[in-house]
C-alpha cells in the first residue's frame, strides 16, 4: 500500500541525477565566491589602495535630487542606480554590496570563535566524562535554549551598540552546538584502541585530546562550521533588522531591509533586494554544508 517503508534498490545514479547533484555544488560555490569577492572589493580603501571598487557610489552619500528612484530596469529608474535609491537618495546597489561585508565578516568571526571554544569543551566533556562532562553538558543545555536575542539586548544596554557587541552576543551562546556534537564524537573515539594505547604509554590528557582525538573529529567540525555560516548570517541580519546590530550609517543587509519598511508603499526595492541577498547566501551556505557533510561525514546526515 503506497509503498510505505519500501526502499528503492540502489541502481546507481542516472545521468540526470548526477547533473543535479553537481549543480547543487557548483551553483552554491559560485554564489559564495561572488559574495566573498563583493565583500572584499566593494571598495579598496580598507587595504590602503585608492578608494575605488565594485560599488559605483559611496553607500552613505545622499542625493536629495535622486530620492526614491526605482531600479534602472524599471520605468522611471536612472541607469546610475541599478537597484534604485532610498529616501535619502543613497544608492541601494552600493549599500547592498557594502552590506555583504558586515554579514560575512560577522559570521566568519563568530564561527571561528565558537568553533574553538565548542571543540575544546566538547572534547574535554567527551574524553573526561564524569563530573566534568555533567557540568559542561548542563551549561550546554542552558546555552542551547537561551535566546541569543535577549543576550544581545542585555549587551546592548550594558556595553552599548557596535560590531563587537554583535560578535559577542552570538559567540557567548553559539559554542554550545559544537560542544554537544563534538562531545558525542569524542565519546565514541575515547573507546578506540589507539586512545587506550596512548594512555598506556603515559600520554598527557591534553596530548590525547589534541593529538589523538582531535584529528578524528576534524571532519565533523568542518561540516558543522559550514552549516553554521547560514545560521550566523541569519542571526546577524535579524539583529540588524531590529536595530540591535552594527550601528548606522554602516549598511548591513538586515538594517537596509528595516530602512525600507516605512517606504514600503512607495519603494519596495529598498527592502526587497537585501533580503534576496541574505536568502541567496544562506541557501548557498546550507547547500555547501550539505554537500561537504555527504562527502566527509555522512553519519551526521538527518536522513
Amino acid at each position, binding site marked *: 500500500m503506497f509503498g510505505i517503508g519500501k526502499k528503492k534498490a540502489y541502481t546507481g545514479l542516472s545521468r540526470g541525477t548526477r547533473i543535479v547533484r553537481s549543480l547543487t555544488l557548483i551553483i552554491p560555490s559560485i554564489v559564495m565566491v561572488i559574495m566573498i569577492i563583493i565583500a572584499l572589493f566593494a571598495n579598496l580603501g580598507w587595504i590602503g589602495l585608492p578608494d575605488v571598487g565594485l560599488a559605483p557610489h559611496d553607500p552613505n552619500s545622499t542625493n536629495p535630487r535622486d530620492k526614491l528612484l526605482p531600479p534602472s530596469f524599471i520605468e522611471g529608474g536612472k541607469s546610475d542606480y541599478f537597484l534604485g535609491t532610498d529616501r535619502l537618495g543613497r544608492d541601494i546597489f552600493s549599500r547592498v554590496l557594502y552590506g555583504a561585508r558586515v554579514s560575512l565578516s560577522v559570521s566568519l568571526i563568530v564561527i571561528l570563535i565558537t568553533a574553538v571554544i565548542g571543540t575544546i569543551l566538547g572534547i574535554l566533556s567527551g574524553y573526561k566524562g564524569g563530573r566534568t562532562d555533567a557540568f559542561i553538558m548542563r551549561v550546554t543545555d542552558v546555552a542551547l535554549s537561551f535566546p541569543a536575542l535577549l543576550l544581545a539586548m542585555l549587551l546592548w544596554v550594558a556595553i552599548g551598540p557596535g560590531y563587537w557587541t554583535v560578535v559577542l552576543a552570538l559567540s557567548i551562546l553559539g559554542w554550545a552546538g559544537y560542544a554537544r556534537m563534538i562531545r558525542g564524537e569524542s565519546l565514541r573515539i575515547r573507546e578506540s584502541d589507539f586512545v587506550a594505547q596512548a594512555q598506556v604509554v603515559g600520554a598527557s590528557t591534553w596530548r590525547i585530546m589534541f593529538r589523538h582525538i582531535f584529528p578524528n573529529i576534524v571532519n565533523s567540525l568542518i561540516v558543522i562550521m559550514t552549516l553554521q555560516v547560514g545560521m550566523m548570517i541569519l542571526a546577524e541580519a535579524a539583529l540588524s533588522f531590529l536595530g540591535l546590530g552594527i550601528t548606522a550609517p554602516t549598511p548591513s543587509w538586515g538594517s537596509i*531591509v528595516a530602512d525600507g519598511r516605512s517606504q514600503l508603499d512607495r519603494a519596495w526595492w529598498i527592502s526587497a533586494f537585501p533580503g534576496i541577498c541574505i536568502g541567496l547566501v544562506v541557501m548557498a551556505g546550507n547547500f555547501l554544508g550539505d554537500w561537504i557533510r555527504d562527502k566527509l561525514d555522512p553519519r551526521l546526515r538527518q536522513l
Partner: protein
Amino acid sequence: MTRFIIVRILQAIVALIGIAVIVFFLVRVSGDPMALIASPNMSEEQYQKIKESLGLDKSWGEQFWIYIKDMARGDLGESLIREKPVTTMIGESMPNTLKLTVPSFVLSMILSFFLGVMAAIYRDSFWDQGVKFLAVLGQALPVFWVAIMAVLIFSVYLEWLPVAGMSTPAHYILPVGTMILFMLPGMMRLVRSSMLDVLDSEYIKMARIKGLPERSVIWKHALRNALITPLTIIGMLLPSLVLGAVISEQIFNWPGMGTMILQATFERDFPVVQSITMLTAILVLGINLLVDILYAYIDPQIRYQRA
C-alpha cells in the same frame, strides 16, 4: 527517580544563581549604570537622588543581595523611563504576546507533526519533495523579510489584510504566520527524520511481519515512538519563539512584551532588560528541568546515565 529529580532541581537552582551573578555584574562591570541614565543638564542633587533611589550608592555586594532578595519576593524593580514597576509593564504586555504566541505555537506543532509524518510515510513522493523544498526555503530566507514582502503583497497591493493593529481576526493572520515561519521548518525536518528512523526500526519490521494492518503500524506503533525526540527538544524552540515574537510584534506594531523590551533596550532601561533576562533564564531552566524529568521518565537509561 526521586534522587534524580532532587539533583536536577538543585542543579537548576545553582545555575540560576550563576546566571543572576553574570547578568548583575555584566550590567555594572561594563560601566556605571548612572552614566546611562544621567543627562548632562541634571543637577548634582538630582543625580544623587536618582542614585540613591536605585540603590546604586551602596556597595556591589549589598546591591546584589538586595537584588536577589527583591527577586525572590517577586519584585523586579522599576523602569527608569516609565517610572512603573517592571511587573506592571509585564502584566500589561504579556496578554498581547500570549494572544500571538499561543496560536502560533499550537499551529506550528500541529502543522510540523502532520507535514513531517506525511513526508516520512510517503518518502520521496511529490509530497515529501514539497516538504523538503519548504524546509530548505524556510531555513534560508530571513523570516522578517518574508513578513515584509507579505505585507507588501497582501496589505499594500492587494489590500486584503490589515498592516497593523489587533482588533479583528484578520489582524492575526500575518503576525501569526510570521511566527509560524520561525518554528515550522526546523521542527518539520526533525519530525520527518525521527519518523523515518522509527519506520526503519526492528520493532516496526516485526509489527509488519506479524501482519498488522499498515494503518495501525504507522499510527499506533511508529508515531508514538517518533514523537519522543521532537518533544525532548521543545526547550530549544524557545529562542525561535522569542525571536519570532519580537520580530513579529515589531513588524506589525503589536503592543506585546517584544515591543516593550525592544523599546526598553533602546532607552537603555536596564532594570527592565535585566529583569526580563532573568525571567527568561528561569523559564529556560524550568523547561529544561521538565524535559529532563519527562525524558528520564520515558527512557530509564537516561536516569542512570545522567544522574
